[in-house]
């Protein structure tokens, strides 16, 4: 009996040791350069952070697995602006999401590290923490944490791989400390892509914009709109029966100026829904009626984010308004609120004026959102 026990114990120990060694080997790649891996001497006292949400905004829903802390946000901001996340250290997340352009890159298509042009325009990150119905134009990532994983390895974006990024972070002089302070890791080698994207997501959840003139006029009623601004608002939301309904509010309603839902806004003429050059939401769901649908972006800071649409086909807001005024192209799944609007020049200009009230300079110039490496 004792002999059997000893044998089992010995076999168990051998298996355990083997698993431990394999685990160590796998973890070991950067370890050869890891001369001081222990981080426990660095204090870990994260400071909980509450995002300041403007009145009348929805609740910011934060995953229980990623509570926000000052240290996590600071780390995320550094990662967001760090070009080491790309294969040749030439691009960061921020390369396509610049504050001065409402966290877009002001291009129709972004170009990745290999000079390959993407097929969609970069989306604004304004109030991105409130986007609960999927991210990207097609909604293929459910959360900010999931979203942040993808551009790093995308061949037409940063074209790096996460093991390399993690190795760079481990070997850097600063990041292990920052990861320790944000997440309490005990060892440099505990840095993971999941922790990196959690930090980026924390930073992104702070990107709250609610201090535009639009907010002062129509949300907080702190000021009186000009006649033109009021006309634009009435057209946008159908407030005044004596002026046409520009139908904007269906997709860009609510205090967020988007519902973050998916629409075919009639920009393409197709014989069947399989003929769209970019199937958009349909590539994710596989649903025929989702082909050609894209997530409606927020109109907050829209004057800063030209060109417009998922493929940047419209250079100006005037072109966008002209498209909607025309009614666009009928398709099976296009939004039925699309139809010729018959807006006068004065009415079109009023809409553009209203869109300009949505610019929040305090947001795009917020020092907390700028590049911390400069």
């Amino acid at each position, binding site marked *: 009996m004792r002999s059997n026990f000893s044998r089992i114990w010995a076999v168990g120990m051998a298996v355990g040791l083997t698993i431990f060694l394999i685990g160590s080997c796998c973890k070991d790649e950067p370890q050869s350069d890891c001369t001081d891996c222990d981080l426990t001497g660095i204090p870990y006292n994260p400071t909980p952070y509450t995002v300041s949400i403007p009145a009348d905004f*929805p*609740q910011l829903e934060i995953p229980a697995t990623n509570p926000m802390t000052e240290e996590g946000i600071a780390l995320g901001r550094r990662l967001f602006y760090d070009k080491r996340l790309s294969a040749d250290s030439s691009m960061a997340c921020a390369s396509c999401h610049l504050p001065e352009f409402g966290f877009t890159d002001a291009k129709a298509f972004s170009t990745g590290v290999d000079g390959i042009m993407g097929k969609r325009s970069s989306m604004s990150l304004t109030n991105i923490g409130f986007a609960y119905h999927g991210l990207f134009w097609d909604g293929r990532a459910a959360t900010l944490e999931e979203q942040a994983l993808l551009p790093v390895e995308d061949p037409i974006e940063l074209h790096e791989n996460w093991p390399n990024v993690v190795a760079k972070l481990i070997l850097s002089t600063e990041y292990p400390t920052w990861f320790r302070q944000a997440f309490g890791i005990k060892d440099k080698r505990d840095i993971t892509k999941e922790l990196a994207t959690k930090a980026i997501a924390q930073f992104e959840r702070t990107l709250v914009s609610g201090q535009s003139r639009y907010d002062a006029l129509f949300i907080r009623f702190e000021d009186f709109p000009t006649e033109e601004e009021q006309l634009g608002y009435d057209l946008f939301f159908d407030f005044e029966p004596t002026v046409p309904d520009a139908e904007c509010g269906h997709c860009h309603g609510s205090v967020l100026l988007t519902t973050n839902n998916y629409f075919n806004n009639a920009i393409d003429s197709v014989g069947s829904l399989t003929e769209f050059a970019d199937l958009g939401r349909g590539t994710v769901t596989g649903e025929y*009626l989702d082909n050609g649908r894209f997530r409606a972006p927020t109109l907050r800071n829209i004057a800063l984010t030209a060109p417009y649409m998922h493929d940047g086909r419209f250079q100006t807001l005037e072109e966008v308004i002209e498209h909607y005024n025309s009614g666009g192209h009928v398709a099976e799944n296009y939004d039925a609120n699309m139809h010729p609007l018959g807006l006068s020049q004065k009415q079109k200009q009023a809409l553009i004026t209203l869109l300009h009230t949505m610019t929040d300079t305090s947001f795009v110039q917020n020092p907390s959102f700028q590049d911390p490496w400069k």
Partner: protein
Amino acid sequence: MKNLWVLWGAMTILMFAGCDKKNDGPQTGSLELTCKATFGAEDLVIGKAYAYPVNNSALKFYLVDYLMSNVRLINSDGDTVKLNDVDIVDFSTVNTDPIQAAAGITFRFNDIPAGEYGTLIVGIGVDTLVNRTKPQDYPSGHPLSIGANRYWDAWKSFIFTKTQGLADMAGNGVFNLPFAYHTGGDALYREVTFQKTTSIEGGKTATARMELDVRALLQQQDGTYWDIEAEPNAHTPGQPAMLLIMDNYPDALQLF
């Protein structure tokens, strides 16, 4: 004698224990309410063409939904059991194929006290109290949240029902006229009362089926049908199409 007293005591305890055991059984049951949509006698399938009795025209529907709120059962004593606050009955993503259209959308309501209920009431839209709230008051995923896309600022109201699609008014097979009828506003909240016995048994699930005839929503009082070409859009309170649709809901809904 002493033995008799012991026997009587034991039997009494056993009797009460038996009673207790009976009371331990489930006192509540469930109701599964399946909501279906039809166009006349046919199941409503998204994107399918239906002959519309106006000038040989035809309609295809791409968005048909309604808010179902304040669903409650009432028994003969007047006791009311509220089954829900609000749900969206959205056929646009479910009725994309005939099988799903035939199956309908099932809502399950639990913890209903066992008993016979002669009345089922269904609210279409939301009542005034709820209509004072705003989408930002609700968490994501809630039927009234921002993402549900059911609020119209100009009305200060949730959108109670949506009926959207494309019309072929020339009868030539070309569906090129979009139509969109949205309803809302306090005055248009409707409650539909069904006088039909629903038996809820403890631990069991009763079933009921509620069908919405979308064609009936568009039928006018004189028996003719709404001229979609004349007014293809309605989402301004006071527009006749909004009132027509909401007034038709009680007759367009049937409980089986």
